[in-house]
């Protein structure tokens, strides 16, 4: 059997696949951030908290109301997305005429409050959420045992990412959205309700985070800090991909998941910093990110 860089190919394939799975979460989350930043110019720091809320609402639905996983996948993004709409209407919409920094501070503060509330209510140890019975078990691929649920995560993430990209870049609605970003006054003059569109866009970005939260609930422990741990990495992904670039967010999300997966084999101690090292290098050579357009 040949070896690649001192690692048997089986192990390498396994790690690549795991990287892809983690990349699915990075892609989904950074996609939501990119949509919000691209169309609203708001750096949504509460994204991690909204991802956590997705997982918690799924848990509450199952435990208190008996809503199964599949129902949660649809209902939870709607519920959490609605809270996003309310937040946008009541707070964020007041900040559009101010510097980016104010939006960042507001959403960061909101994230701390939301996390604190959940911490007081549920503690930090996490709550159990079982994998749905249709997806329990796994398939032996020869080089590794792939849990069915993880395969589903990759598929679901790819579908949602592609759907979002298609909606924004290839449909009439997406064209309105992009036009409204460029020149809201003009688009409004054509009879399109720009503020409502912006509100719904924020709600959609939040719903994406909540969707990722539901996907994560069965594999990571559902705890109030789950988003805070992830959000920093996801911001690095967005910066590397190029702030506001939809395609950039998706591709870098998956790509960096793989890079991180490989670091875990070759030099595990560095796996938590690998992404930030890449971010620093990318910023040195392409300050707008890999897929970003320089203004």
């Amino acid at each position, binding site marked *: 059997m040949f070896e690649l860089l001192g690692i048997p190919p089986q192990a390498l394939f396994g790690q690549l696949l795991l990287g892809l799975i983690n990349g699915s979460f990075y892609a989904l989350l950074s996609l939501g951030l990119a949509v919000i930043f691209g169309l609203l110019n708001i750096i949504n720091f509460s994204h991690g908290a909204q991802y956590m809320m997705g997982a918690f609402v799924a848990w509450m639905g199952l435990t208190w109301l008996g809503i199964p996983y599949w129902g949660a996948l649809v209902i939870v993004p709607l519920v959490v997305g609605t809270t996003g709409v309310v937040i946008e209407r009541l707070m964020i919409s007041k900040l559009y005429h101010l510097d980016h920094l104010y939006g960042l501070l507001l959403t960061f503060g909101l994230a701390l409050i939301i996390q604190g509330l959940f911490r007081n209510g549920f503690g930090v140890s996490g709550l*159990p959420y079982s994998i749905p019975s249709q997806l329990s078990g796994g398939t032996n691929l020869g080089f590794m045992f792939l849990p069915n649920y993880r395969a589903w995560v990759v598929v679901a993430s790819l579908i949602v990412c592609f759907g979002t990209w298609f909606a924004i870049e290839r449909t009439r609605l997406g064209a309105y959205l992009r036009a409204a970003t460029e020149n809201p006054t003009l688009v409004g003059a054509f009879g399109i309700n720009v503020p409502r569109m912006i509100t719904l866009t924020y709600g959609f970005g939040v719903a994406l985070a909540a969707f990722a939260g539901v996907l994560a609930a069965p*594999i990571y422990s559902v705890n109030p800090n789950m988003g805070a741990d992830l959000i920093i990495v996801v911001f690095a992904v967005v910066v590397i991909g190029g702030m506001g670039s939809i395609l950039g967010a998706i591709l870098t999300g998956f790509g960096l998941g793989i890079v991180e997966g490989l670091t875990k084999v070759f030099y595990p*101690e560095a796996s938590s910093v690998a992404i930030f090292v890449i971010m620093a290098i990318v910023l040195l050579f392409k300050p707008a990110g890999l897929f970003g357009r320089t203004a």
Partner: protein
Amino acid sequence: MNFKTATLAGLAAMLMAGSAMAVDVKLGVLNDRSGIYADLSGEGSVVAARMAIEDFDAAAKGINVEVISADHQNKPDVASTIARQWYDEEGVDVIVDVPTSSAALAVNEITREKGKIFLNSGAASTDLTGAQCAPGTAHWTYDTYALANGTGKAMVDNGYQNWYFLTADYAFGHSLEENTTAVVQASGGTVVGSVRHPFPGTDFSSFLLQAQASGADVIGLANAGGDTVNSIKQAAEFGITQAGQALAGLLIFITDVHALGLETAQGLVLTEAFYWDLNDETRAWSERFSEEMGGSKPTMVHAGVYSAVTHYLKGVEASGDKATDGVMDWMKSNPSSDQVFGEGELRADGRHIHDMYLFQVKSPAESTGEWDYYKLLATIPAEIAFRPLEDGGCALVE
């Protein structure tokens, strides 16, 4: 004034002086109040400290105790800053709890420098009573040696000979891996490898697959709290346990078992210093604790805080003041006794010794109710549960 009146007045004055011993003591509970160790220490440790003060009836004995608390976020630098501020500016006499070994070692050094007292319950590193032992430090509840000696030895004795470690990459993980390796090798087992994961982590599947590829009989989890919970969950998901490899959770708290659920956690063997359902006294104490903590049961860290603060207050009462040397001397030369740990002893190196327990997590069918999680496999007597006094290399041991 005749002789009789004078004598009576003198006696009265002496009595008043005796009962009105007025000592102000300030306890600072420093631990994780927001991160992955917040449930196993956090507010529960503050509640446990308060319970100790109430049960001791400190105010009636002339000891006025004030308790303050802070969040060290599991970061040694944050812990150091708070410890210095507490000792220098806020008049704190004793720092209590401090989980996260790296943070605990930092507080240990500052306590030594300031000549104060440090009652550690939450941290695990044996260095606190070994190379870095300090005159004012008492390490109360458990340490990596006791964990390795309990769980590690039990696993090897049950035929799990080849070990692979999944280790949290900081002082605690390293210390636990090192101690367990020593126990495994001494019992005739071997260690085939280890991988160090960033702390805290989220996804352990990559490390678990490396552990699986090693072909070891057992994967030793040298991590704690949320990291252990996720490791165990993901090992089940990736079919690692089903494929025949066993997991040895070297440090598992009851809050972790609660988070995992019995379905996933059943069968795990673990070492603890305390379990709420050990005897009538622990049940009664835990019931009171639960009432204040919204129903959750105390961890051994909470119980350790109670036990340590109780013994400390006895020391203050006996010495009549709070001077570090006097109180520590009294604490080390008198046995401890309380309703959570029973009888114990504080050794010269600052190690508190008491019985440890080897438990196995019940299956869902065996459990009769919420928080009914453990069955007792063995009691490890205090004399052999902890590292022998002479092996630690502590300079305080003559």
